[in-house]
């Protein structure tokens, strides 16, 4: 079974703090993604990575950065947290490989609910 884990389920940080959200997957997936989810807005892609040390901006990268030093780990960094970054953050991974069961199925972690006060 694919497992995607996120470092925290709930996190409370103060405005201006540097925040690290960690995501680890155990299925040797090439692709990893960070989304934020807000009521009425669905899932919005922040950043994604299709290989170690490779990263691409998603739809809302402002205020965020990412790091992928190892294949299994993808970190989301809030350089200076602000109240408008209060949200649910979801990490996901997927394989390059086209298989009989599906192409680009994404496996999600449980999410981190971040509150910035």
């Amino acid at each position, binding site marked *: 079974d694919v497992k995607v884990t996120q470092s925290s389920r709930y996190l409370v940080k103060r405005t201006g703090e540097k925040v690290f959200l960690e995501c680890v997957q155990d299925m040797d997936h090439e692709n990893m993604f960070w989304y934020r989810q807000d009521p009425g807005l669905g899932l919005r892609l922040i950043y994604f990575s299709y290989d170690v040390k490779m990263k691409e901006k998603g739809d809302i990268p402002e205020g965020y950065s990412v790091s992928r030093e190892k294949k299994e780990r993808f970190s989301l960094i809030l350089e200076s947290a602000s109240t408008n970054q209060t949200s649910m953050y*979801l990490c996901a991974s997927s394989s390059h490989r086209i298989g009989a069961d599906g192409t680009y199925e994404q496996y*999600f972690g*449980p999410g981190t609910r971040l509150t910035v006060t």
Partner: protein
Amino acid sequence: SQQGEEDPQALSIQEGENATMNCSYKTSINNLQWYRQNSGRGLVHLILIRSNEREKHSGRLRVTLDTSKKSSSLLITASRAADTASYFCATALSFSGNTGKLIFGQGTTLQVKP
């Protein structure tokens, strides 16, 4: 507007009834996927339908795809209270290459009353 738009935004039915959710998209796709999210949790993949397929079944789930209308529907038959969740469609665009990038809709919230 977004690539994937879902209709209705919210749906409330009685246990045993069927639930139908619709998804429309704008650009050419490789495949379309449906995911489920229980309250406060991550998403779980339900079913994938490729652009050259018209219908697919998995247990109580039936998905259709009409590429001429750029739309898909998810039917859950004989619904149960445990089906209460949010459902999202996601499209893999034809030009997304190996990045695996998906575009998610805003979701349909389904409530199944016992």
